[in-house]
């Protein structure tokens, strides 16, 4: 490497150029968008300008070589396009000029551009933005996923998703939502919105009941990337650490969740040697770091629950008493349908089928009528109480509400006994 100031290297092959552009797109997309949009809050125009800049890079770099600082080149190109687009307006880009001047300096050739992505995350999860579009907005602006990919993950038509994203961006601009980190008094609530938006990308069906950890339809990798980013930008936020730990615990079991024939394997039947040790160790460390900060919250509790499940193969027994306490704690912090159903599953596994049934029957029927984990747990609880007829009815409903074909096949086998 040596001298960073080198004039562009001899023109490399086309493949290398494409590779560099794709690499830059992946690594820097969100950074560049955050910086471009922070100027006037116009995400849509920033995205257009940046995609034009990427297209220009593909055209120019093959003849002139890859610039010493590709990010700065892309930023300049995108910004020039933005200025052209707004030529009639007075351009107030003094801050940007300063950034660019510093980046153009030879010594800065490898310096990263300033990171505004945290502010962008808070914009995407702003309370003024409709809840169902916060996660899609984050996935699009920070990771550069297209509307069609996002639509599929959220089971929405691509047209609808495209419209929601366009409307949300228009709202950000029109409402003048500021690209900044919220003030301290507003921070906890606003941070929770950011965390929830990231978690929504991870998928929600796996967390409800031990043994139905199915998250194949989710954007797990993307969610983990976002959580890592958040942790690196806010290392002192215990709930951010907790969220990352939670997702790593669940993701670590990915390989064990599906047998060699593709069949679904529930948690209690999984081969723990297939779990990814690196992720579990990282999750444990994160949880310890979070606990030192002394502010308990929902994600840390959920991560602790996962931690207990993961320890079972090591100690040889599941610590049900601890699981029960953590679930009770979760219910005081964040009572949700998923948390109640999960609590009932723990009671049932502890041999308290009757108490499990009581918890389940206390839930509002309309809240659970299409919630698959409720019916799986209800079936297990009825079975534990020696009520085969009621168990069969609940199991039938669970199977009918299952989306994943492998999980459906598993439940059909369970029912057959």
């Amino acid at each position, binding site marked *: 490497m040596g001298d960073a100031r080198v004039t562009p290297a001899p023109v490399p092959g086309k493949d290398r150029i494409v590779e560099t552009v794709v690499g830059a797109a992946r690594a820097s997309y969100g950074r560049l968008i955050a910086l471009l949009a922070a100027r006037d809050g116009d995400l849509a125009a920033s995205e257009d300008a940046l995609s034009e800049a990427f297209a220009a890079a593909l055209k120019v770099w093959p003849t002139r070589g890859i610039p010493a600082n590709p990010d700065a080149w892309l930023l300049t190109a995108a910004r020039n396009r933005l200025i052209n687009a707004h030529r009639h307006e007075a351009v107030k880009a003094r801050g940007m000029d300063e950034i660019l001047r510093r980046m153009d300096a030879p010594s800065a050739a490898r310096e990263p551009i300033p990171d505004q992505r945290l502010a962008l995350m808070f914009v995407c999860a702003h309370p003024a933005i409709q809840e169902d579009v916060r996660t899609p907005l984050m996935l699009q602006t920070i990771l550069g996923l297209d509307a069609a990919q996002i639509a599929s993950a959220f*089971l*929405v038509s691509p047209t609808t998703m495209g419209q929601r994203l366009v409307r949300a961006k228009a709202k950000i601009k029109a409402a003048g939502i500021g690209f900044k980190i919220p003030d301290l008094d507003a921070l906890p609530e606003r941070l929770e919105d950011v965390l929830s938006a990231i978690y929504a990308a991870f998928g929600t069906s796996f967390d409800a009941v031990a043994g139905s950890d199915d998250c194949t339809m989710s954007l797990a990798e993307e969610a983990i990337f976002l959580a890592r980013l958040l942790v690196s930008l806010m290392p002192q936020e215990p709930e951010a650490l907790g969220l990352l730990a939670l997702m790593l615990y669940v993701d670590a079991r990915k390989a064990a969740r599906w047998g060699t024939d593709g069949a679904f394997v529930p948690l209690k039947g999984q081969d723990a040697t297939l779990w990814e040790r690196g992720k579990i160790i990282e999750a444990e460390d994160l949880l310890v770091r979070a606990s030192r900060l002394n502010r308990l919250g929902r994600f840390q509790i959920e991560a602790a629950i996962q931690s207990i499940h993961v320890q079972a193969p090591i100690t040889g027994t599941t610590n049900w008493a601890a699981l029960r306490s953590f679930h009770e704690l979760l219910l005081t912090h964040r009572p949700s349908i998923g948390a109640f159903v999960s609590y009932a599953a723990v009671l049932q596994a502890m041999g308290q089928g009757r108490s499990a049934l009581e918890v389940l029957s206390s839930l509002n029927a309309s809240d659970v009528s*299409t919630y698959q984990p409720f019916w799986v747990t209800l079936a297990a609880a009825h079975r534990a109480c020696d009520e085969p007829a009621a168990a069969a009815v609940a199991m039938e*409903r669970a199977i*009918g*509400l*299952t989306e994943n074909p492998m999980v459906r096949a598993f439940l*059909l086998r369970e*029912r057959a006994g």
Partner: protein
Amino acid sequence: MQFMLIMNETEAERNKRNDPAEAGAYWGGWTAFVQAIQQAGIVINGDGLQPPHTATTLRIRDGKRVVQDGPFADTKEQLGGYFVIEVPDLDTALEWAAKSPAASGGSIEIRPIMPPPPQG
């Protein structure tokens, strides 16, 4: 809002109907889905259909009737059944479509039902 869930199956999936090794899981999955969607109280109408080889297709061309054996087009996936459901929006229709065994054993087309034409 009313939608039709048009459920298409591959031949391999459809053959499970009569395959002793697969029929139990095939019908088990469908029966459970049909019950779940019925219990949700959103079904207006719905049926499974006999296999495509039982179809007969009729056209009138240049004033002549043309009757053919088989479905109107020979495609990889064939219509296997349908539901007409009443749900608040497309998102909800998509959620139900995703739970159907046809989602993994074929595909589901979701179409809004046309309102009656304006009375002149």
